[in-house]
């Protein structure tokens, strides 16, 4: 069996039909990881013992002939910002290099309860802050499609693990594009659900009003399957919404004819790579052929999205990261005579450059004298950005754009210019600010063979329409 092309659907069929066992499947993936991950760097921690125990449990059920759970034996990878009991959970940061979590993240627990086998924890930018994975406190991830290039970020390890066939699927997190942008760079599917759709209990917080958990997969169908299992109200996360969860596997089969697709002109302006533009425009044309109605629209405040995001996200990050003080868990500097020295030196030595930059910016915009000018101002513009979407969704059912202005860039290319790096998120941050769901689905390649992603955004809690469109497009493109 060629495991590199396995999907959730085909892996679970193989186990159901006893063509392989869950243990054998997990072992094959560990062999693949051992062979391939030295060059890629997608994993930070392997959870072999827990994976094989879970797989053995699945095989025992199968041996007895009892009904198997829906994700029985499906190998998945988890971004290292989600905690698992008894497993080192670093969030890509040195400050948590020795942190072994005492409880399970709800999304991970739900997948395991459905029978999934967690292979390991994937590399990411420190505290999910970055667009290239170069901010990992451990080592950068290399794009499996071209090892000299970044996989995107911050869920670059999850995207690379799936793209390289080292995992069938993965969970990532998205605060400003961190699922969709790496999915686009690595040529996989990345889905950010609506804010509130998936519990964040056990997600190490970056910016709480913007953080989302979602799947990275090889197909849209697989994204629908994972979403179905992780979605829904969780009493342990008060921001998880009490909204009924549809059966997304059925949702994607519904017809798309007559759906109205908005194409916002602001997403096709200066800075968009011509090859990305051509691929996305061809994809939109294809969707018109399938029967969607293409409607030119405007999201007039788009040029304010990145600055709004970097004020709000850093403000929330500075507050969330205040908890890392060397007292209760995480790194403590040994060179400290007093408590305040211990706080400062633990944080100084534990955080990397980007985390410090964002803590500083966030502290500044919240500080006396600047709160109104920056933080409140950004919150007001956030309302305007959200109204742009509300107005657009009066007229259209979904919005299609490029996921990222360029294909994957070279490692080191943007390291010295934080602003240039922030602009890699220019088409993704607005959905996080407005809380709407979005997917990135592969829509072509550059001349150099680098993947290009099409982004589809939808109304709040209408992931069904988003993935249905992505699914139909995916099928039309391959077929």
């Amino acid at each position: 069996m060629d495991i590199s092309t396995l999907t959730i659907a085909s892996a679970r069929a193989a186990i159901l039909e006893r063509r392989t066992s869950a243990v054998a499947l997990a072992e094959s993936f560990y062999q693949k990881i051992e062979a391939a991950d030295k060059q890629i760097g997608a994993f930070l921690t392997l959870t072999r013992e827990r994976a094989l125990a879970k797989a053995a449990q699945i095989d025992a059920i199968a041996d007895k002939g009892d009904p198997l759970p829906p994700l029985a034996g499906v190998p998945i990878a988890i971004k290292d910002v989600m905690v698992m009991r008894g497993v080192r959970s670093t969030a890509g940061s040195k400050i948590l290099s020795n942190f072994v979590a005492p409880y399970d993240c709800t999304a991970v627990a739900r997948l395991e309860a459905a029978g999934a086998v967690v292979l390991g924890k994937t590399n990411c930018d420190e505290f999910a802050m970055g667009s290239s994975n170069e901010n990992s406190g451990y080592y950068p991830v290399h794009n499996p499609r071209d090892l000299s290039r970044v996989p995107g970020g911050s869920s670059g390890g999850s995207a690379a693990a799936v793209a390289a066939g080292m995992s069938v699927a993965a969970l990532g997190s998205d605060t400003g594009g961190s699922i969709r942008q790496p999915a686009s760079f690595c040529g996989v599917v990345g889905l950010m659900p609506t804010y509130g759709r998936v519990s964040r209990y056990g997600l190490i917080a970056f910016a709480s009003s913007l953080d989302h958990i979602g799947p990275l997969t090889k197909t849209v169908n697989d994204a629908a399957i994972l979403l179905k299992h992780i979605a829904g109200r969780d009493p342990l996360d008060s921001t998880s919404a009490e909204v009924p969860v549809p059966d997304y596997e059925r949702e994607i089969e519904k017809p798309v004819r007559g759906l109205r697709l908005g194409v916002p002109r602001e997403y096709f302006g200066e800075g968009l790579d011509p090859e990305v533009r051509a691929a996305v425009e061809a994809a939109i044309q294809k969707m018109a052929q399938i029967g969607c109605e293409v409607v030119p629209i405007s999201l007039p405040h788009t040029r304010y999205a990145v600055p709004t995001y970097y004020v709000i996200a850093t403000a929330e990050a500075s507050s969330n990261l205040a908890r890392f003080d060397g007292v209760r868990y995480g790194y403590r500097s040994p060179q400290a005579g007093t408590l305040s020295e211990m706080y400062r030196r633990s944080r100084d030595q534990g955080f990397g450059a980007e985390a410090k930059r964002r803590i500083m910016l966030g502290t500044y915009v919240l500080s006396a004298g600047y709160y109104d000018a920056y933080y409140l101002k950004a919150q007001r513009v956030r309302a305007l950005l959200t109204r742009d979407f509300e107005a657009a969704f009066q007229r259209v059912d979904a919005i299609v754009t490029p996921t990222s202005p360029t294909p994957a860039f070279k490692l080191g290319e943007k390291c010295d210019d934080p602003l240039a790096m922030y602009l890699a998120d220019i088409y993704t941050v607005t959905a996080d600010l407005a809380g709407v769901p979005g997917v990135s689905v592969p829509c072509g390649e550059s001349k150099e063979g680098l993947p290009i992603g099409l982004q589809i955004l939808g109304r709040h809690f209408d992931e069904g329409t988003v993935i249905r469109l992505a699914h139909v497009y995916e099928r039309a493109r391959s077929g």
Partner: protein
Amino acid sequence: MSDNRQPITEKDVLYVAELANLELTDEERARMVKDLNSILDYVDRLNELDTSNVEPMAQTSDRYGIDESKAGTARFAYAMREDKTGPSLPREVVMENAPETDGAFFKVPKVIEK
């Protein structure tokens, strides 16, 4: 540099670092002055917008996914829970991650400084 903003100085960086409980090396501080100014120049773009009649928006979850048939806090009834104690992590499990502990408490360097 925009006309209406005082640039961030090394002194500002020192002050903010203190608020954030960071020390920063000389080199990091110099770099921070440059980076923060470059980012804030870009953020100044927000001042092009008149937002005097726009309410600040802290969350999307206070607008979507709520029970719109109800008013006030009843709209968020799903987020409420009974005020009763439930199980929490055992102390010894929590202390396994403590940098320094006597088993019952977290130990820290001396708190009162001269």
